[in-house]
């Protein structure tokens, strides 16, 4: 579990350190201050062994195909990851936990010594990644260097006319990391697989119990194959089962979140705009369920919000649970740069008493 996280030269962050991290962390702040970018940085750090996570970030933002012009000197397909689009600097992501420090460094490899190391990859590899349009003979290379407790690994992501691929073959990430975006729907198959895993463990009722917080009529859930499409559907007393997304955005998002958590033991679940689709009256109950599930599955949560009701509900839910393993972190752009301001239990109680703004 992260205790602190440092981001350098990534997206809008020149440098930011987020400390006092707990089991559940809620990120607030003004528009365009970097809340989603912070989740992306955590996602990259969690998926450390797989540089293709960099392209998943584009997909999370709704950019499915990556357009790269290999003939334009200096620009690379990864430039949007770098602060101020400056790919001459290195992105550094450092997470601290009980066991020590894990750091990830991403840099565009352009020195002859780097390119020599991977020249055989560039010439020998078959085409792998189809979401890329290329237009020249040259190759771009992203070096991903990963360090944990003295152990060091380097992987290279190559973009050339054959496509994009990672060399050597990436290892399994050190722990599971899931990202629930603010708007994009999770593929039905992914959701059905998650539910099936729960069923295999006989834990499907746990999901049902949580979903009943926002749909009390829900009697059971089932994975249904209809017209070749696998989908999670629910029985709410209608003449037939109803696909989860048709019941509403809130229940569909909550189902995804719970499935992610149950499959992220010892890992991290990232949720952008957690309040989306949830009525304020159920928010405290949902937070209570999130807290319980996070403890049960030993999952760490990072979620963003704009919503004060969501923050207050979270604080109250964690007070009631007698385990205030929760922090609010506000990202704020100041004259000195981006900073993170952290609120603990006493701070949040004072915020509610004084009505002083926290977002």
């Amino acid at each position: 579990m992260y205790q602190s996280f440092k981001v350098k030269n990534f997206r809008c962050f020149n440098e930011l350190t987020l400390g006092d991290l707990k089991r559940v962390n809620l990120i607030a702040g003004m528009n365009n201050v970097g809340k989603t970018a912070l989740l992306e940085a955590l996602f990259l750090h969690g998926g450390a062994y797989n540089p293709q996570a960099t392209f998943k970030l584009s997909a999370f933002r709704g950019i499915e195909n990556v357009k790269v012009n290999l003939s334009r000197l200096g620009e690379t397909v990864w430039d949007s990851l770098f602060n101020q689009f400056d790919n001459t600097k290195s992105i550094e992501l450092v997470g601290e936990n009980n066991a020590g420090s894990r750091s990830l460094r991403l840099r565009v490899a352009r020195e002859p010594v780097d390119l020599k190391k991977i020249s055989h990859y560039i010439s020998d590899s078959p085409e792998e990644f189809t979401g890329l349009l290329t237009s020249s003979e040259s190759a771009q290379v992203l070096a991903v260097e990963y360090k944990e407790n003295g152990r060091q690994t380097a992987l290279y992501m190559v973009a050339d006319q054959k496509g994009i691929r990672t060399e050597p073959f990436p290892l399994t990430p050190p722990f599971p990391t899931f990202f629930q975006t603010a708007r994009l729907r999770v593929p039905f198959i992914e959701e059905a697989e998650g539910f099936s895993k729960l069923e295999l463990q006989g834990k499907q009722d746990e999901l049902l119990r949580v979903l009943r917080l926002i749909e009390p009529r829900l009697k059971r859930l089932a994975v249904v194959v209809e017209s070749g499409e696998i989908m999670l559907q629910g029985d709410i007393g209608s003449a037939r089962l109803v696909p989860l997304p048709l019941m509403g955005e809130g229940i569909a998002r909550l189902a995804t979140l719970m499935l992610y958590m149950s499959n992220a033991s010892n890992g991290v679940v990232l949720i952008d705009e957690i309040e989306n689709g949830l009525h304020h009256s159920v928010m405290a109950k949902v937070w209570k369920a999130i807290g319980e599930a996070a403890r049960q599955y030993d999952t760490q949560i990072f979620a963003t919000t704009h919503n004060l009701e969501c923050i207050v509900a979270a604080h109250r839910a964690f007070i009631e649970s007698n385990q205030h393993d929760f922090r609010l972190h506000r990202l704020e752009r100041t004259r000195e740069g981006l900073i993170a301001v952290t609120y603990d239990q006493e701070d949040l109680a004072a915020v509610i008493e004084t009505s002083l703004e926290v977002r």
Partner: protein
Amino acid sequence: MDLDTLDVIHPYILVVEGKEEEVFFRELIRRLGLPKIQIVPIGGKSNLRQNLKILAKSPRFNDTVISLGIVRDADDNWSAAFQSVRDALQAAGLTAPESQLASVGNKPRVTIMILPESGASGMLEDLCLKTVENDHANLCVEQYFQCLQQQGLPLPRNMAKARVQVFLASKPEPGKRLGEAAEAGYWPWDDLAFEEVKNFLKQICFA
């Protein structure tokens, strides 16, 4: 659930204990013609330490606030009250002045005023009562409490608050609270007893 929030939006901030002080000081600031001072009622003195910390953590506080004034009652012990404000300031990572009305620090500059006046125990009510010491109605106020004693009735626990209520009962529109009485012009703003608190407010804006 009331979710109206208090945003720090002005460069000059005055921290007061509660609603009554907020209304009183807003009126005095208006009468002095000072630039806009945002008044932040931060709750009782027992919460000052925690709530001041939260104020200093507020969004845009560091970039917005130039000057911060803190006013609170001395109650029984002026020195202890002054020290408690200093402790709260330090806990919030702010500069703590060594003495009343000494403005110190930078971003924000900090000034403390302990009421009713330097070195004296008491509260805002005592300050207001001092300004009407020579008011004819004051004789009746004292007689009222003497009468209570003669009848064998216990005196109120907070005599300053009780005296203010009895004094304000003599006014054309009785039933006003201390702050409302300020708005109604029932306190003589030109009285010398208000000089220290006026200097304090000017100090917040101009030091």
